[in-house]
């Protein structure tokens, strides 16, 4: 049997591919429905090329060898002889499941950058705004600014507009001219032009004009300050504008969720954009025998790439051959993914948006001034030491939101770059999801 963890595009594709030769698959996911963050746990999906999702959902439902374990949150994985024991929480109980092989497709979450007011009600990530809308049918606000960088802002802005929100502004801190650096990526992926046209028409219909080299640099009491930024993300003086809004949805690309692969001991590396990811081979095998990894955790690349990686992982794990065309398509999508990273970089200038009182770690309410003092007064040289001194990253989210930002702030203050070792160490979280002491103790052998 193979356990697939994560029922987003990569996990669904992996489960479906592995089941083709009758291999038993347990597909574990924390949501009630399939689809992951991207297809938002719906039975039917709307939007660009949504038929792919519906087709995949149907295949999974019709495959008798796939068991979908929903609303199950995996908190740890143990090695038990040559089996993996996956411990998960479901309905207030702890259960476990064992298998010889694992496919991890744990996806990614929005990256946030701090700015004054980012921790106030009304400020959220684009992913959260989309989740409220698609998952719960709730519009986050009537007047919305969508900001940050990257193509993910487009479906969020159009989705909110279609549901009746007024998109007061759509701002990307980078400029599309950066695509000129990667013409081959566009030529290899002509379908991306069609996708762009699809969103451009939608934006036009809702009279939304994207603006570039702009960022939300502060937000308070229903007013967002839109600043012009240069290519380093530093604010260009005296070019600020205010916008009255209910909601600021700001997102800066994605951070993969590495907890489970980290627990199993899969080797990690740092991607070209500074993101920590897992190292995998051509067949999506990790450094640990019988563990495959697919999707965003092997490099942020979007649903297209995740589907292919998932399919390859599923085929490889179930002992089926992988057609060369699949490998070629993955390469094509990887070239596009790398072009995305080059076109939408995160520049250090964001650190200057914060003042001393800006919250950097929301869980523990650690301010910028405290992080600065931990470096200048106490000699912190990396995010671990800054965390020990300030508690930044010790709270409920365990640094998933702030640790990367803290690393970069500390590096900025000490005029260093963040080492790969530090980036990898900060993703080490042995408790992948909180578990009550009662349940934990009850599981004692």
């Amino acid at each position: 049997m193979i356990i697939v963890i994560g029922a987003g595009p990569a996990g669904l594709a992996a489960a479906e591919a592995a089941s083709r030769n009758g291999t038993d698959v347990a597909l574990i996911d924390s949501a009630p429905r399939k689809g992951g963050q991207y297809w938002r746990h719906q039975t039917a999906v709307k939007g660009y090329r949504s038929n792919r999702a519906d087709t995949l959902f149907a295949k999974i439902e019709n495959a008798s060898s796939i068991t979908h374990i929903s609303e199950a949150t995996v908190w740890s994985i143990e090695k038990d002889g040559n089996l993996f024991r996956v411990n998960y929480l479901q309905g207030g109980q702890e259960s476990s499941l064992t298998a010889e092989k694992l496919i991890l497709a744990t996806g990614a979450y929005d990256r946030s950058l701090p700015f004054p007011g980012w921790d106030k009600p009304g400020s959220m990530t684009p992913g959260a705004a989309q989740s409220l809308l698609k998952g719960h049918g709730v519009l986050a606000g009537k007047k919305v600014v969508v900001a940050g960088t990257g193509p993910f802002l487009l479906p969020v802005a159009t989705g909110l507009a279609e549901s009746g929100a007024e998109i007061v502004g759509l701002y990307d801190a980078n400029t599309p001219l950066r695509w000129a650096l990667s013409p081959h990526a566009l030529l290899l992926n002509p379908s991306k032009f069609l996708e762009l046209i699809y969103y451009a028409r939608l934006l036009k219909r809702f009279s939304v004009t994207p603006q570039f080299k702009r960022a939300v640099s502060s937000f308070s009491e229903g007013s967002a300050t839109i600043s012009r930024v240069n290519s380093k993300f530093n604010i260009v003086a005296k070019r600020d504008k205010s916008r009255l809004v209910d909601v600021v949805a700001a997102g800066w690309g994605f951070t993969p969720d590495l907890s489970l692969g980290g627990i199993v001991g899969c080797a990690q590396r740092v991607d070209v954009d500074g993101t920590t990811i897992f190292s995998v081979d051509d067949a999506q095998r990790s450094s640990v025998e019988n563990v495959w990894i697919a999707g965003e955790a092997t490099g942020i690349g979007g649903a297209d790439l995740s589907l292919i990686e998932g399919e390859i992982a599923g085929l490889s794990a179930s002992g089926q051959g992988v057609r060369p065309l699949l490998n070629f398509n993955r390469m094509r999508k990887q070239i596009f993914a790398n072009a995305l990273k080059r076109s939408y970089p995160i520049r250090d200038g964001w650190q200057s948006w914060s003042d001393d009182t800006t919250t950097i770690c929301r869980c523990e309410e650690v301010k910028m001034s405290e992080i600065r003092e931990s470096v200048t007064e106490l000699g912190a040289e990396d995010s671990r030491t800054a965390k020990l001194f300030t508690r930044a990253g010790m709270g409920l989210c365990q640094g998933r939101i702030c640790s990367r930002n803290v690393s970069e702030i500390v590096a900025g203050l000490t005029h260093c770059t963040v080492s790969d070792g530090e980036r990898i160490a900060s993703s080490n979280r042995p408790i992948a999801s909180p578990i009550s002491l009662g349940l934990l103790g009850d599981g004692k052998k």
Partner: protein
Amino acid sequence: MKNPDAIVIGAGIVGASVALSLTNAGFKVLVIDRGAVSSGTTGAGEGNILVSDKDPGPELTLALRSRDLWFEMQDDVGDTFELEAKGGVVVARNDDGPLMILASEQSNHGVTIQKLDHTSLHELEPYLDQRYQSGVFYPQDSQCQPMLAAAHVIRTVVQRGGAFISQAKVTRILVNQGAVTGIETTQGNFSAPIIVNATGTWAGELAQMAGSHLPIAPRKGFILVTEPTKKYVFHKVYDSDYVANVASSDADLQTSTVVEGTRAGTILIGASRERVGFDGSMNYEILRRLAAQATSLFPVLRDVQLLRAYRGFRPYAPDHLPVIGEDATVKGLWHSAGHEGAGIGLAPGSAALITDAILGRESFMDGSAFSPARFEKVSL
């Protein structure tokens, strides 16, 4: 700083304390560490400053003095590291005989104790399981935030004319005619007639560089940290089995739970003891045992969520006593290491012993039980 009077290797709490003590005695001190401040065992510690877990003997004498020196160090440096005399409560479920005998002996050696019956025990710890019949209150047991403490102490050393260099790994210890003359590091070479080895769990490796020998090995421990909760635990609370485990030489896993609340509202649960070398892997069975013991002490913790768990390596010597003093064969090489799980508590006392010995002045106790010379023929 090219020619300091003394070099302290290791920027954990033990090294920081030695550096401050020497600085206050008029030495120009250079502190170096292969990582950052508190990047070793100090950074994985709970901040225990305990007298309650020590049998009468030299370690208890050291612990009592060291505990007072912590408060003096706080006055010297400024109230900046969450030092608090929160007190310890040791509880017994059934047979409290051994605990009460130990407490009486400790009391004869200067430890303040208060024996607790069922009523007074549950007044001190209202959420403790009613099945615990009796216990002992140790008001001297204290707590600090050890990483902050080390950082503030080293900052004070630097303010008083010392220096600190991080990310400097020692590559050679220079010895001439049986005496140290300096060190070579990845951040440059330094000469000094006095070198203090405060590298904790790694002190054996460092001694070896100087051609000497210290049998210090790691004993792994896990600590659990919960979400912030309502105040359920008011002191450091542990089962009387803990004392037996601290003293044990058994290589096998031992768990006996110490539960305490922190200022941040989280609850810390320690501590396991395992001799498995520097194997850093997570052992979920240990976490389960610690959780089971913590919830058996405080059933109210059953619904509290565990957020994280971390591990560290305690430095221990075969006789479970710290190693404090001049090397048996190399002159000018001093050791303050091997404090096992008590390094935070014993740090300033150990520093005072070393400074007194270097100056050749009388100290508060006879430190010969901690002499590095006791291992000349011992290995692990």
